């Protein structure tokens, strides 16, 4: 990962933009004449249960292909935390036809590139390639889903890679360190409590058996959704899917995650002391899973509080009080009830408590009085523009469609979302502010610099 989870963009963005689309479809397309491009999607479910979504776009001779597996760190257990992510790495390290190193070499020499990411909920594989490589990519994807191999030497060297990744993205970043502690404190029962990259001691100790078990658990074709956007036709994609993917047998999906996080009944606080130039503050609130109806109102609320320099939190902490360099809100798509995070980067010499107090006052303001009409409209305009930014590339569309399909259960929920989104009222915003953003429901994490006095050499 390039960024710590906390810092990274999450799929929520995708949603945000899609939601905005709905507003567009509902009211604006008509004035936008030819620009109101639509993105028809063809779907097919293979006999083994894998679902394929195809969205054709011939504007560039390229293709974006995303494969979403519904398996992530929530499907892990203590002792093997980080295994989903490690496994994601191993998916590039050799199968039957394309041995170690051959997947990347073959793909790149045919003009393609790839990547993958793992979250608490899903593992997603991405291929970007010229259309001439379409069949090759299906061959490669089929090979590794069907016949992944586990070379003991590769496991050991990849262990070093992931440890380096962890040091770079978590241990070497203040946000990474604090974010990890925050999740571990806010959750006491549910698997969301451990980091996606895994605890270092687990990275050092998982075994080949663990990997094999993970493959068997998470990688049934029926547990995957593939989304293709770009210079292809549904017919050719479906034919290739039938040839390369359909023969792969299906098996049981991961066992359901049955642990429910008990309701939090009082504020939790934690402090991290480390060498740092500046302190850091993060506040987490438990909120429902992605497909909960409050999703839309929560996003509107976040826009009003955090989006743009005219947002309430920016105006208050950065512009007026001048106690923070930056304020942000973060959340991630989730199958289970999750966290919504507020972050403030205090200025040097500012007590994080001052930022905390200002944040609570802004939350209380939201709870005690309805937002202005213009603020509500602004939030919706933001999301409309963001939506277009998301869908204007084949890459963005592949990701967007897949995210809807996986987290809302159906990519067409897009249209319900439009309706739900424009239906958000000032009262809804006030209600969710009261319901989820109380003191009892929050976990507060503060990073305190240990060396503030030293500084100068």
């Amino acid at each position, binding site marked *: 990962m*390039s960024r710590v989870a906390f810092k990274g963009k999450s799929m929520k963005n995708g949603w945000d933009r899609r939601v905005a689309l709905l507003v567009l479809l509902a009211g604006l397309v008509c004035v*936008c004449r030819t620009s109101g491009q639509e993105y028809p999607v063809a779907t097919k479910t293979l006999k083994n249960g894998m679902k394929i979504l195809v969205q054709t776009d011939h504007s560039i001779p390229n293709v974006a292909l995303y494969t979403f597996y519904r398996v992530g760190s929530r499907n892990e257990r203590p002792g093997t935390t980080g295994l989903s992510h490690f496994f994601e790495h191993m998916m590039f390290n050799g199968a039957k036809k394309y041995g170690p190193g051959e997947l990347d070499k073959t793909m790149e020499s045919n003009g393609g*590139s790839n990547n993958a990411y793992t979250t608490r909920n899903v593992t997603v594989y*991405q291929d970007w390639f010229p259309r001439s490589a379409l069949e090759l990519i299906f061959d490669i994807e089929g090979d590794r889903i069907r016949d992944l191999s586990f070379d003991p030497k590769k496991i050991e060297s990849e262990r070093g890679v992931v440890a380096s990744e962890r040091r770079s993205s978590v241990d070497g970043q203040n946000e990474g360190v604090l974010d990890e502690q925050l999740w571990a404190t806010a959750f006491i029962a549910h698997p969301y409590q451990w980091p996606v990259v895994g605890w270092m001691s687990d990275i050092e100790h998982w075994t080949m058996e663990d990997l094999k078990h993970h493959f068997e658990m998470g990688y049934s074709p029926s547990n995957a959704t593939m989304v293709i956007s770009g210079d292809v036709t549904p017919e050719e994609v479906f034919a290739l899917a039938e040839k390369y993917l359909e023969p792969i047998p299906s098996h049981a999906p991961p066992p359901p995650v049955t642990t429910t996080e008990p309701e939090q009944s009082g504020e939790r606080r934690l402090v991290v002391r480390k060498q740092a130039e500046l302190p850091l503050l993060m506040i987490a609130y438990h909120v429902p899973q992605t497909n909960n109806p409050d999703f839309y109102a929560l996003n509107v609320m976040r826009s009003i509080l955090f989006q743009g320099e005219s947002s309430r939190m920016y105006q208050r902490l950065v512009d007026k009080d001048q106690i923070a360099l930056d304020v942000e809100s973060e959340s991630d798509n989730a199958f289970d009830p999750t966290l919504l995070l507020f972050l403030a980067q205090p200025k040097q010499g500012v007590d994080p408590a001052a930022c905390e107090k200002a944040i609570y006052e802004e939350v209380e303001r939201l709870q005690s009085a309805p937002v202005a009409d213009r603020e509500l409209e602004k939030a919706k305009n933001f999301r409309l523009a963001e939506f277009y930014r998301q869908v204007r590339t084949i890459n963005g569309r592949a990701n967007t469609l897949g995210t809807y399909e996986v987290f809302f259960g159906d990519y067409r929920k897009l249209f319900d979302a439009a309706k739900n989104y424009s239906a958000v009222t000032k009262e809804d915003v006030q209600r969710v502010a009261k319901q989820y953003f109380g003191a009892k429901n929050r976990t507060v994490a503060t990073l305190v610099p240990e060396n503030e006095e030293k500084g100068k050499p």
Partner: protein
Amino acid sequence: MRMGFGGWDVSVLNRAFKGEKRIPHPAKEAGIRDDRFGNAGELMGSPVLSSSGQAGCRRYLVAGFALVVAWLSCGSAVRAQKLQMPAHEKVVLKNGLTVLLLEKRSVPMVSVAGIVKAGGLADPAGQEGLASTTAGLLRKGTKTRTAQQFAGDIDFIGGTFEADAGADYSSFAAEFLSKDTAKGLELVSDALLHPTFPQAEMDKLLAQAVDGVKAAKDSARDVIFQYYEGYLYNGKGYGRPTGGDENSLKKIQRDAIVKFYDSYYTPGNTILAVTGDFNPAEMKKKIEETFGAWPGKAAPAVKVEAASPTKGKRLLLVNKGDATQTYFVIGNLGISATDPDRVAIEVVNTVFGSRFTSLLNEALRVESGLSYGATSFFSLQKEPGPFAMYSFTRNETTGKAIEMALEVLKKLHTNGITAEQLSSAKSYIKGQFPPTMETSGQLARLIVRHEFLGLDDNEVNQFEQRIDGVTPEMAKQVIAKHFPLENLTFVLAGKSSEIAPMVKKFAEKMDEKEISAPGFWAGAK
């Protein structure tokens, strides 16, 4: 998702999560994006960080690296396999403003990208960050709007406006829905033509910038390239921090900002590209109405000190006492964005260090597991920018990883690259090219940058044939000429007490600096 003052982040999901397969490009780590996936607000050459994974407060810390891949951030291909730059028009208004118009009707949005031909290189000595601060203040108060009103107006239409400075130029970018074109253009012109630079806003911005530098120093990977540029150019030219440092930012006065603006922000010194969903004839008229009254006058030329490659082997060790991992950059002066060898270098560097199966990544990551990744790049700017190899590894393996990187470089010289590698690199470059010019925002930044550099549409139209035209002989020459073996500058950020004994041997001269000490590298005392 992050919502901060970047608002519009691209959500390129491959950089989003715990657990990417691969290392992002180091320049991306420094907050620079190659924009392959069409993010909106990035500014050319002087990327604004708020959209990247970094906190917005770190926007001043960017090293000015552009990728080799990024200079070519064109591509095209409307339906056909043949890459073609979309038709666009150049108009010079009576006041001297150069306007580039490109119609692109994919989504109902309009993108604006502009360059003012003076950046950090025009900062007076000791006032590094002046150009950047001037740009940052454009939206912080105009003749008719307070900073808060400007933010309210641009946010209300879901638009973006950002401005910053790189070394070569200052730049601004905006984006809005096409239904809001009139409002959007008016906001851009208001910021560009009528800023008032209120003292209170200046004080705020500078204080944030100073703290932003400090916050960035909490993450070695976020600042390693700042130190590298400083050390490589010995604190001159591209070696001066365009975003300023803890000392220089404190010396910036309002008078200097006003003077910088008055001198350089003139229509004749500005290039404005507008792309997206509009009728070009109507847009031309609107631009004339909005920007035509901007009074023209001559701007002074920016003097640039010529840099030359460093001699021998020299090493800067930046101490970060709590580091568990060492970040290192090795290289020397590279090439300019218009260097005739740039295409051949692109092909060779793809083999050497700029893709997953590159020689460097194969060695340091795939085969040894020493690092999450290793890469190399040439930063392409108006004058020769840095060439750099970059990786990171745990403290104990620092010496070993650097030796390995040097070994890979040596092998590039002794073994050259094979016909197969050459062919593979060409396919890779060509295959990855079209998505770099998929959106109107990408196209706006591309054409305005070409105009600035004096490059033409053949950068796109002849792209494939130029790549295909790179011969093994050319590759050989490029390796000998542009991949230095003997004369190397090393910059490491890590825990000195553990790594210094391992790394002294790499250079004849070793300098040291505390990461928390103000500044980056301002030249030997």
